[in-house]
C-alpha cells in the first residue's frame, strides 16, 4: 500500500502546516479593559483634558474605530502615540494601511460596493473633493462649531491649524469643512550647499537662473565616488502626484492658469496659453540637465536621486525634508539647503498640499471618531508627532523657535506658505474642488510627462490638456 503511505504523509504535513499557521498570534490584539491610571499623563494634560478623556471613556469606551490610511510619516507617528489614546479613552483604533495612490481606489470601491468598512479615512487634498462631492464624508462643521465638544484650545483648534492647509479641506462652494489636516507641504528647492559653495553659485531667484544653474552644474560633469552629479531631479511620472505636480505650481509664476479663476471649474489653459506653454517648456528644458528619466520619476524616485547624491538640486515637497535629514536614507544630511521656490515672470507663487483625516458619512461611531481627531490635533501632540517623524500643521507649532531650530526646513516651509497665500489671494488654486478633480489631474500628469519625455511638444501638451479637460467637463 505504497500510495496510502504517501497520502498519509502528505495529509499529515498539510495538517501540520495549518496547525503551525494557527499557532501564530492572531489579529492585532485588542487592549484589555484596564482601570485608567491618569497619573502618568499629569505632566502633559491639564485636569480639564483628563476630565474630557474620562467623559469620552464613559460615552464611547469599548468601541473600535477602523481607519484607512496611507503609508506616511505622520501616520506612523500617529500609530506610535495611539496606545496613549486607547489607554485614556478605551476606544480602540485599528489601522488599515496602503499607499497614497491606492488608498483612494480602495476607499471608493469600499463605499460604492456597500461594504462601508471605515470610520476614518486619511485623504490627500486632491482626493478629498471627490469624496465630499460624492457624499462620502461627514461635514465637520456641526462638530467644530459645537462649543461643548471642543474642550479647550489646547485640543483641536481649527484657527490654529495653518490656513494654507485647512483651506484645502474647506469647500470653496459652500464653506463646509470636511477633514482636519494632519500633515502638509509646500514645494521647496533643496540644494547642495557644498556644490553651490564650491562653484560659487547662489540660490536661484528666478526660474531662468535655476535653469542656468542646473545646466552649469550638469556641464561640470562632477563625479563623486563614481556617482555623476546631475543638475536637478524632480518628478514627472504620468501618475497622480507625478507630472501634474510641479507644473500646477509653476504655471502661475509663469503667467499661465489651468481653470477659470472665477468659477474654478471651467478649463481655461488656452486663455493664457503662453504661460502654460512656458512652464512645460521650462520643465522639459531643465529635465535635460537633470538625472536621466525624470519623466518616469515619482516623488520617491526624485527625492531619492537627490538624497543619494545624484542631483545637486531638487524641487520637492517640504514633507520629504525629514527624510533628507535622516542619515539612514540620505547621504546629504549636512549638505542640504532649503529655499522657497524662485520667482517667474508673473511673480512668486506656491501651492500648499495637505493630508488630512476625515470622518466617513457611513460611520457608526462618529462621536468617538471626532474625539480621536480632537485628541490627535491637540497642541501637545503636535510636538510628539513631530518627534515621531510627523509634519507640523498648527501654526503655533511651526512658529515655535525651538521647533524651527530643531527642524531647519520649517522656516522655508513657512515662506512657501506665504507664497501660497499670495497665490490664493489671486485665486490661483491648483486643486479644483470638483468631483472629477482626479480626471483633470490625470490629463495634466500624462501630458506633462509626455512633454518631458519629448513625445510631444510643450504646445501640443497644453492643447491636449485643454481638450482633455473640455471633454471631461462636457460629459458631466
Amino acid at each position, binding site marked *: 500500500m505504497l500510495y496510502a503511505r504517501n497520502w498519509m504523509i502528505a495529509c499529515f504535513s498539510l495538517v501540520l502546516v495549518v496547525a503551525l499557521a494557527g499557532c501564530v498570534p492572531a489579529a492585532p490584539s485588542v487592549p484589555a479593559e484596564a482601570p485608567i491610571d491618569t497619573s502618568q499623563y499629569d505632566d502633559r494634560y491639564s485636569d480639564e483634558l483628563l476630565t474630557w478623556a474620562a467623559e469620552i471613556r464613559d460615552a464611547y469606551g469599548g468601541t473600535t474605530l477602523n481607519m484607512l490610511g496611507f503609508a506616511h510619516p505622520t501616520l506612523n507617528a500617529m500609530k506610535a502615540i495611539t496606545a496613549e489614546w486607547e489607554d485614556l479613552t478605551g476606544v480602540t483604533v485599528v489601522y488599515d494601511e496602503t499607499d497614497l495612490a491606492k488608498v483612494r481606489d480602495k476607499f471608493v470601491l469600499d463605499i460604492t460596493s456597500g461594504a462601508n468598512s471605515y470610520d476614518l479615512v486619511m485623504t490627500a487634498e486632491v482626493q478629498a473633493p471627490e469624496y465630499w462631492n*460624492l457624499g462620502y464624508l461627514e461635514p465637520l462643521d456641526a462638530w467644530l462649531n459645537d462649543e461643548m465638544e471642543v474642550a479647550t484650545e489646547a485640543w483641536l483648534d481649527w484657527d490654529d491649524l495653518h490656513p494654507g492647509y485647512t483651506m484645502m479641506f474647506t469647500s470653496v462652494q459652500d464653506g463646509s469643512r470636511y477633514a482636519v489636516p494632519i500633515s502638509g507641504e509646500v514645494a521647496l528647492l533643496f540644494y547642495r550647499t557644498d556644490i553651490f559653495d564650491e562653484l560659487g553659485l547662489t540660490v536661484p531667484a528666478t526660474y531662468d537662473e535655476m535653469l542656468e544653474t542646473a545646466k552649469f552644474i550638469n556641464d561640470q560633469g562632477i563625479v563623486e565616488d563614481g556617482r555623476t552629479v546631475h543638475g536637478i531631479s524632480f518628478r514627472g511620472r504620468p501618475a497622480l502626484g507625478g507630472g501634474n505636480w510641479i507644473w500646477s505650481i509653476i504655471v502661475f509664476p509663469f503667467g499661465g492658469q489651468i481653470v477659470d479663476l472665477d468659477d474654478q471649474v471651467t478649463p481655461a489653459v488656452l486663455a493664457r496659453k503662453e504661460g502654460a506653454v512656458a512652464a512645460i517648456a521650462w520643465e522639459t528644458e531643465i529635465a535635460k540637465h537633470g538625472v536621466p528619466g525624470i*519623466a518616469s520619476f515619482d516623488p520617491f524616485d526624485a527625492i531619492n536621486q537627490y538624497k*543619494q547624491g545624484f542631483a545637486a538640486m531638487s524641487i520637492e515637497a517640504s514633507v520629504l525634508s525629514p527624510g533628507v535629514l535622516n542619515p539612514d536614507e540620505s547621504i546629504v544630511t549636512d549638505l542640504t539647503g532649503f529655499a522657497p521656490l524662485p520667482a517667474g515672470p508673473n511673480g512668486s507663487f506656491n501651492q500648499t498640499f495637505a493630508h488630512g483625516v476625515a470622518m466617513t458619512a457611513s460611520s457608526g461611531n462618529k462621536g468617538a471618531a471626532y474625539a480621536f481627531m480632537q485628541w490627535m490635533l491637540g497642541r501637545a501632540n503636535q510636538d510628539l508627532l513631530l518627534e515621531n517623524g510627523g509634519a507640523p500643521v498648527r501654526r503655533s507649532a511651526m512658529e515655535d523657535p525651538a521647533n524651527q531650530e530643531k527642524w531647519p526646513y520649517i522656516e522655508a516651509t513657512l515662506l512657501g506658505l506665504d507664497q501660497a497665500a499670495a497665490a490664493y489671494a489671486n485665486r490661483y488654486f491648483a486643486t479644483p474642488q470638483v468631483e472629477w478633480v*482626479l*480626471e483633470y489631474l490625470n490629463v495634466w500628469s500624462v501630458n506633462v510627462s509626455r512633454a518631458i*519625455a*519629448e513625445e510631444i511638444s510643450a504646445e501640443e501638451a497644453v492643447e491636449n490638456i485643454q481638450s482633455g479637460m473640455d471633454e471631461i467637463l462636457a460629459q458631466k
Partner: protein
Amino acid sequence: MRGTATNALAATRPSAGRRRSLRLWLPYLCLVPAVIASCGVLLYPTLRMFQYSFLNWSFGKSYETAEWDGLANYQWLITSQSSTLFHSLRLTLVYAGTSIVCELVLGLAIAVLLNRRHVFGRQVVLTGFMIPTLLMPVMVGMMWRMYMYPNGMLSYFLGLVGLRIDWYTATWAMPAVILIEIWQFTPFFVISLFAGLRAISAEILEAAAIDGASGWYRFWHISMPYLRPIIVVTSMIRVLWILKSFDIVYTMFTGGPGSATEILGISIYRALFLSRNIGRSAALSVILAALTLLVTFAFVRFAYRSREVMESSSP
C-alpha cells in the same frame, strides 16, 4: 492517448441500460465540480463587465446613476483623438510577444542544458530556479525599481563592464519591464520543459542514437514533437497571464515615461480609477478579453493539431 476508456469499459463489462446511460453522462458529471468552481464564480462578473461596457457610468457613483450608452464607449475608443487604444494594443503585443518568445527560447535552452547527462547539482539548480517565480509581483517591481536606479545593483554591475543604461528613460523603459518579466518567468518554462524532457522515454532516444542520429536531429525530431504540447500549454498559460498582467509595469513606470509603457492593463486601470469611466474601462477590458480569447484559441487549435500529429506519428 491510446484507445479510449469507454471502449475498454464496453469490452470488459456488458451492462444494463442504466449503466450505459451513466457511462454516457459520466464524463460530463466529472466536469461539474470544476465548471461550477470556475464558471459559477466568474460568469456573472464577466457578463457584468460586458454589460458595463455599454454604460455611461462614473466610478464612485451608485449603479442607479448609470445610463445606457449603446456603443458609444467603443466608438470613442476607436475614433477619439485622446484614445490610447491602438498605442496600448501595439505596446501590449510588443511587451507580451517579446517576453514570451525570449522566455521560451531561454527556458528551452536551459532545460536542455539541465537535461544533459552530467550536471553538477541538478536538483539544487532546479529548485533554485523556482525562486524568481515565487516572489510577489509587487515586491519584484519594487526591488527592480531600486536595482535600476543609477545607484542600483544592476546599474553598478553593468557599470563594471562599462555599460551605462538609463533604465528610466523612454528608450529603455520597455526593455526594462521586459527584462524583469523574462527574469521572473523564464524559470516557469524551465521547470515545465525540463519535466517534459524527462518524460521522454530513454529507450526511444537510445534507439535513435544507435541508429546514428545526431544530437541536433534527436532534439528536433524526437524531443520536440513530445515537447510541443507542453510548450503550447505553458505558453498559453503565460499568454493568459501576461496579457492581463500589469503589476510590474504599474510598479515600475505606471505607463510612463510619457506613454512609453502604457500597455492595455495600464489603460484599463487609468480609465477606471483616474478617468473614472467605468464604461470605457469595461470596453477596454472587453477588447483585451477578446484579444486574449483569440490568442488562447489559436494556441488551443495548435495544441490539438500537434496532439493529432503526435497520435498519428506514434506507431
